[in-house]
């Protein structure tokens, strides 16, 4: 499906989702509590069939976090970007690792670098940094006087 058809379909399925304008692929924003309702539909709906989660990341906008999920369908070759804003003090969101197994590692990475907690993740531990590391490096307010050189 091309972008317009996709927009119509998504609006039909999730009326509460907001769209961003002027992007290459359809970007929708949902509430973090809605993720678990939206994701299975995206995966299983026969017209959508988003079975390939190719990027899972987080952006720190000093006031809040945004979780960004990039989905693609190997059958229809259409793409979708799902975003969700999280509270910066207590970032929690459901894990998608039971539906897309690639999310297991990606969510561990986001937990390691941003501190976002993923509920029902099979094994949420730090991935790159040692288990005793304090702090979340990719946050904009991460200070490390020893190792970081601010240009």
């Amino acid at each position, binding site marked *: 499906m091309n972008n317009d058809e996709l927009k119509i379909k998504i609006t039909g399925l999730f009326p509460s989702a907001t769209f961003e304008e002027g992007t290459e692929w359809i970007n929708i924003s949902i509430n973090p509590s809605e993720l678990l309702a939206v994701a299975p539909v995206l995966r299983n709906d026969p017209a959508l069939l988003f079975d390939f989660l190719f990027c899972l990341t987080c952006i720190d906008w000093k006031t809040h976090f945004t979780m960004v999920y990039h989905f693609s369908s190997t059958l229809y070759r259409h793409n979708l970007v799902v975003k969700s804003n999280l509270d910066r003090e207590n970032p929690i969101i459901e894990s998608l690792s039971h539906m897309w*197994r*690639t999310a297991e590692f990606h969510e561990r990475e986001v937990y390691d670098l941003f501190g976002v907690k993923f509920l029902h993740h099979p094994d949420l531990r730090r991935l790159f940094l040692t288990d005793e590391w304090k702090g979340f490096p*990719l946050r904009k307010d991460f200070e490390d006087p020893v190792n970081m050189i601010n240009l």
Partner: protein
Amino acid sequence: MIEELGTTTEGDLVINIGPQHPATHGVLHLKVTLNGETIKNVEPHLGYIHRSIEKMCESLSYRQFIYSTSRMDYLSSHINNHGCALCVEKGLQVEIPSRAQYIRIILDELTRVASHELWWGAMAMDLGAFTPFFHSFREREMITDIMEETCGARLTMNYIVPGGLMADIHPNFQNSVKKFILQFKKTIGEYEELLTGNIIFQNRMKGVGYLTKEDAISYGCTGPTARGSGVSCDVRKYAPYEIYDKLVFDEVLETEGDSFARYMVRIREMSQSIRIIEQLIDNIPEGDFQAKTKVVLKLPKGEFYSKVETARGEFGVYIVSDGAATPYRIKFRSPGFSNLSVLNHISKGYKLGDLVAMMGTLDLVIPDIDR
């Protein structure tokens, strides 16, 4: 290299493989739980070469950050740079002259062949055949010599800039590449006989490490790892960039899903890359090698994503920009990261000796995974 850590109460043995390997994978630490010789669980421990490149790039300019990706997957450095440059060009909405496009693709495919040559030699060495390593490096030397002449470096070729290339190609470029193609065609038959046709090798690879198509998609595998299981995921085919849509080449798919299928995919991909180079090498158009861009690049506010097909799979660059001269957030979607996550799944129930064959066919480069 290996330490025995202790037995669990059920009589399982937990051993460490790595982080120092005699093989070429890099610093990968695997905690393998064995029951006798059978693998029950493989847990990768990453981070030995984590340099937080993504955070570093937040303080580099749009011209500078591209070259940090050469250090990520150093065997496909051209292709990684290409991906970053495409993303920046998407943001700047600049048109690339066709001369630059042709040369970028020739260098990309040469890099792919060089990466697969090294993979082939290293994998043979892991399985105990020491000679193919030297033979494959003989070809790889020819490619790195071409790179050295053109770009000035043998491994981390910082040659692609947003807008085109940093400098024009060496006048000797076409002749060197043609000589390489002749040599390659002579020796690829030797490789088939030496290793692929060897019954010992086939017995070690066939039936080892089955990856089904659904699992490959679910785990996010791309590149030859997924194509060995029948997943059609070549970015050059389904989302062509530059002039790939005008080129004639096959996407190599195998349906078996075992290690031998993944091995054959890579061997055939080398021939396909040579096919692409042959279509381009005589037809490089005249013109500029670089589009005119400002000295200090500033991407408009927004998000940009571009994907390229590296030797390992789909490499994605996601730039979030807020209008400044440095990116606000960059995420590199590295192919090795997802390919590694499937190792635990495919190695259950096999023997320890098979783990080496499986890791070899996944073609992991750890700096790519750790970033």
